[in-house]
């Protein structure tokens, strides 16, 4: 049927990978044996592509809280908060998020993707402008497409280009939403947030920062890049996810703008999605307490990140610009990426293989995410697996 024709390129790309003995989109973790270990293809494998930055997925307090909530409130809410009502846990988590970020209000969403979609579509509509960093995540692009506003890119972290585009907008800057990320998900580099916040203030625009990969990772209190850069007062909206450093699933937005409460009623992705289950809310609340109470987890995370970054750099791999919990090996050739990824898996190390068009520059990446929970032995095994790539020959690939 013709309706399926558009899927043909995907089908042939997947077949090419399978011809190389690789099925990277269907990796099965047959058993999870430890916080950062699973059995894949019958082999014990270290997980280095999880985004589980603080290693909280097996934290006993988080598990206990989730189990209690399951027993007391059941497996799910079975509907949206607008229709089915709020559970006390939803309200408590929003209160705790607002307090953690020192903001007046917070909204909890069901996933990070929904949080971005929900905020962008409620904030910007026809007649408005959205200006995003070109390296932003797909969820931000999707939010822009759905919003109905005009949307434009500025060159990644290029403050001159951002300013030029704001200048061209003239009075429309008052209706402009700038969107950037704390840590960019592909290369692990940070937004130049001090400069961006200053330019935003100068032109009277609105700024939303997605701290998905920087919550719990950056800042003395773990609030993210805005805290670390000392510009929280100049950031209108902080959006984030629970599915990385907090080890669960869900998303949020915090803000001092009183209109945030109205966004609940204007955001279709919020209104028409089932709310997070009680167990998710309970374990997220515990994880947030841990982010506040255990700064040593951040120290351990950064120690592991610096170690892996330096060792891969010493092996002459081309990496992102600076050490980060996201460490991406940049390659020029898809065949090499596939061969490397396959060899890493054979050596018991799982990383994310990111192929174009999902990458920012059209080249493939082998993306590692480091955790506070990785043991020195696991970091060593990751390094040894990368060292083994020297003698890998590249298989043929059709496309």
């Amino acid at each position, binding site marked *: 049927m013709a309706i399926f024709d558009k899927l043909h390129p995907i089908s042939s790309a997947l077949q090419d990978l399978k011809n190389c003995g690789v099925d990277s989109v269907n990796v099965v973790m047959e058993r999870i044996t430890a916080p950062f270990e699973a059995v894949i293809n019958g082999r014990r494998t270290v997980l280095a592509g999880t985004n589980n930055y603080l290693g909280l997925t097996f934290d006993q307090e988080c598990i206990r809280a989730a189990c209690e909530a399951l027993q007391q409130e059941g497996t799910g809410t079975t509907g949206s908060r607008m229709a089915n009502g709020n559970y006390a846990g939803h309200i408590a988590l929003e209160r705790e998020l607002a307090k953690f970020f020192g903001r007046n209000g917070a909204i909890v969403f069901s996933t990070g993707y929904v949080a971005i979609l929900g905020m962008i579509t409620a904030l910007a509509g026809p007649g408005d*402008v959205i200006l995003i960093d*070109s390296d932003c995540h797909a969820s931000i692009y999707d939010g*822009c*497409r759905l919003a109905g506003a*005009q*949307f*434009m*890119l500025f*060159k990644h972290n290029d403050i001159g280009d951002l300013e030029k*585009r704001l200048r*061209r*907008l003239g009075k429309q800057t008052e209706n402009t939403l700038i969107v950037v990320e704390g840590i960019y998900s592909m290369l692990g580099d940070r937004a130049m947030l001090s400069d961006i916040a200053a330019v935003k203030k100068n032109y009277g625009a609105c700024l939303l920062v997605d701290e998905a990969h920087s919550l719990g990772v950056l800042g003395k209190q773990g609030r993210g890049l805005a805290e670390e850069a000392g510009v929280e007062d100049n950031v209108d909206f902080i959006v984030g996810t629970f599915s990385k450093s907090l080890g669960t699933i869900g998303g949020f937005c915090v803000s001092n703008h009183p209109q945030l409460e109205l966004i609940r009623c204007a955001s279709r992705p919020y209104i028409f999605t089932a709310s997070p289950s009680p167990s998710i809310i309970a374990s997220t609340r515990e994880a947030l307490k841990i982010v506040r109470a255990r700064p040593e987890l951040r120290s351990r995370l950064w120690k592991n990140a610096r170690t892996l970054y330096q060792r891969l750099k010493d092996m002459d791999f081309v990496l992102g610009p600076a050490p980060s919990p996201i460490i991406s090996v940049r390659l020029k050739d898809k065949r090499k990426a596939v061969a490397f990824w396959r060899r890493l898996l054979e050596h018991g190390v799982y990383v994310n293989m990111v192929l174009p*068009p999902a990458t920012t*520059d*059209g080249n493939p990446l082998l993306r590692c995410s480091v955790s506070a929970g990785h043991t020195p032995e696991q970091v060593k095994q990751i390094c040894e697996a990368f060292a083994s790539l020297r003698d890998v020959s590249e298989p043929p690939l059709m496309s």
Partner: protein
Amino acid sequence: MQDYRELVVKLCDIIRPFNKDGIDLNEETDLAGDLGLDSLKVVELLVTVEDSFDISIPLNVLPHVRTIKDFAEQLQRLLSERS
């Protein structure tokens, strides 16, 4: 309002460095089909056009741009909105 013919001529001048196969450029030239521009090249072309006219082109217009004629028409509309 910017003259449409002048816009087409100027666009062809800007597009020429992207025309690796040296095909004949005219209003009906298909940017993806005839010039073989991938998405990264399209963005590069867009930025060059933006800087030439000191204008920002929203990405929302891209689905409406297939040929040089489409591009000139969208550009003419954006320039008139600015003035």
